[in-house]
């Protein structure tokens, strides 16, 4: 076998062409997914939303559909929809941020109602092209946010009266819970540290703009770490500095996560008032952070757990 140098056959123009193509940025999204001649999507923008076969994405949205008594329209849910128990019987189309377009289309839905932040964008583009209406519902972590969510879902389902009734009930419930919590004088308010995870002794806690921050405020307590947005891993000194009276954690239910005694054994935690009093509160994650119809009850329960109601 001769080892002739075949590489010499490459001409400079070939290299130049290669370089030119590689310098081209990927083609911008001109005709995103509707560039295929065989597919002519029949757009039905002006028609009323048909929710007879509904896919619900987001635990809070699913919960509201059930609370409105409209669960007979549901044909599928996402991974985060685990309440009420009956929802678990529905087919699961995947995690809200990693939806599978074919999986959803296979269910023959007439509409999809999803909480803000569902995706990915490519999946949404395909669904849009298949003329399946995809409605997004914003989800701020406040009292008004919950009511707006109920209102929007009710409007989309075409049951505004039921939604108004549920809003009135949930709103009154929330107001009562907040009013009860407000009675406590400022000086007696306790500082709550919500710990998302405590893996390997690294404490990840919730700052502002999170569901945990929202529920702690509704329960009439103070977020012990209100100086940063989102979830962050804290240094030991920042935890001691935060002086939490109560540590709040999610109940994982599956035995995973960090055990109370392991958490209390950490020097930083042990030096806080919460550590000294072994004051750790655990609640179901979806119930505590879902910001749906059950949030008033969750706020009351948290309030009772914090102040010994």
């Amino acid at each position: 076998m001769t080892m002739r140098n075949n590489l010499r056959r490459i001409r400079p123009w070939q290299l130049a062409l290669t370089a030119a193509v590689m310098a081209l940025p990927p083609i911008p999204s001109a005709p995103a997914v509707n560039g295929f001649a065989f597919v002519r999507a029949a757009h039905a923008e002006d028609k009323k939303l048909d929710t007879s076969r509904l896919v619900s994405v987001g635990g809070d949205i699913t919960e509201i559909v059930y609370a409105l008594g409209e669960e007979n329209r549901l044909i599928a849910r996402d991974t985060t929809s685990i309440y009420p128990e009956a929802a678990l019987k529905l087919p699961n189309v995947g995690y809200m941020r990693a939806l599978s377009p074919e999986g959803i289309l296979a269910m023959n839905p007439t509409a999809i109602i999803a909480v803000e932040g569902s995706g990915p964008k490519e999946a949404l583009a395909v669904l849009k092209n298949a003329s399946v209406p995809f409605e997004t519902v914003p989800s701020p972590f406040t009292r008004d946010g919950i009511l707006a969510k109920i209102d929007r879902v009710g409007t989309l389902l075409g049951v505004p009266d039921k939604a108004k009734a549920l809003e009135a009930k949930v709103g009154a419930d929330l107001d009562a819970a907040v009013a009860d919590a407000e009675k406590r004088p400022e000086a007696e308010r306790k500082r709550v540290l919500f710990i998302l995870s405590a893996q390997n002794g690294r404490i990840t806690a919730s700052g502002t703009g999170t569901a945990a921050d929202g529920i702690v405020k509704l329960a009439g307590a103070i977020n012990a770490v209100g100086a940063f947005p989102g979830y962050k891993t804290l240094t030991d000194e920042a935890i001691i500095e935060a002086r939490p009276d109560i540590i709040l954690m999610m109940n994982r239910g599956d035995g995973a996560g960090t055990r109370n005694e392991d958490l209390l054994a950490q020097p930083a935690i042990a030096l806080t008032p919460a550590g000294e009093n072994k004051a750790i509160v655990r609640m179901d994650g979806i119930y505590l952070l879902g910001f749906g119809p059950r949030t008033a009850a969750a706020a009351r329960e948290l309030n009772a757990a914090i102040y010994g109601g």
Partner: protein
Amino acid sequence: MALPQAMMERRLPFPMTEISANRQAGDRTRFALLVIALLVIGSVFSMLFSVTTGASDASVLDVISNMAGSETALSTRDRIIIFDIRLPRAILGFLIGASLAVSGTVMQGLFRNPLADPGLVGVSSGASLGAVTMIVLGGGLAAPLEALFGIYALPAAAFGGGLVTTLLLYRIATRHGQTSAATMLLAGIALSALALAMTGLLIYMANDQQLRDLTFWSMGSLAGATWTKIAAAAPIILLSFTALPFMARGLNAITLGEAAAFHMGVAVQRLKNVAIVGVAAATGASVAASGGIGFVGIVVPHILRMAIGPDHRFMLPAAALLGGSLLIFADVLARTLVAPAELPIGIITAAVGGPFFLWILLKQRSRLAL
């Protein structure tokens, strides 16, 4: 897979004669061509299999026979599933699998190291940095890019990051027109660490929603396959492939060492230039289109080397075919195992490929008495 004829002959108890050695070489060539022919059939089959299977009951035959007929809502739905979801996924999957497997083969040949993978030239860490930058700063600092590319801003950023890292690494490792493989490996480690540090900083800045996006991106998926993505990735990958026929003999010679190859008349430096730029472009385009899909680039070349021997003239086309069809099969599993949801494809390639690779390794070990 049938036992390679060459393997059987190697265990003959009598010493090799000139004639049997020649015959052995002929047999090996014939066997390699047979394997490539089988892989072509396998690739066609994998394509058909991918387009006809999925979470829904959409049928290709129905769609094609209804093409001329009237449009109902259901037939429109099925058409979209076949032509806008399954077909682009099959094509993109094949392209990316082929690109990763071929890049892995070229890298392992060039560095004479069976552990080399396409990420070795820094393209993976650079692409990750580009993608993470886009995910975390998408709304703010990187907004102009987003406005320009729309939903393809993320792949564009990943591709740019991968290419920039590779070119930088290449400049560092090249002195007086000579690229040193050793310098490149070491500089690659340093640059990857740097990119990782910047990525880490961005991850620290990310909110929990962005963190989830990052997690899914790093696991890789063909879920975002669209015709537009194919139009963006295919030219880059296919153009990189055009250099391959010119490289096979050079890569064969380089197995004896760079100096030996040089004295055999191989333009070693030019070979390196073409290989590194080509691998960076193809891998960059693949990572950009589908996120991080590991394993294919490192394992496919090994499987082939065990099956048809180390001759790059056969290895390169076989790697393209095997890598492409394996990734398509992995994607079918990803789409159907947990339907109507889907798994990230990286999980499948590792979970199925890992044990299979070990099995082959153990089988070979006992046969070759290594």
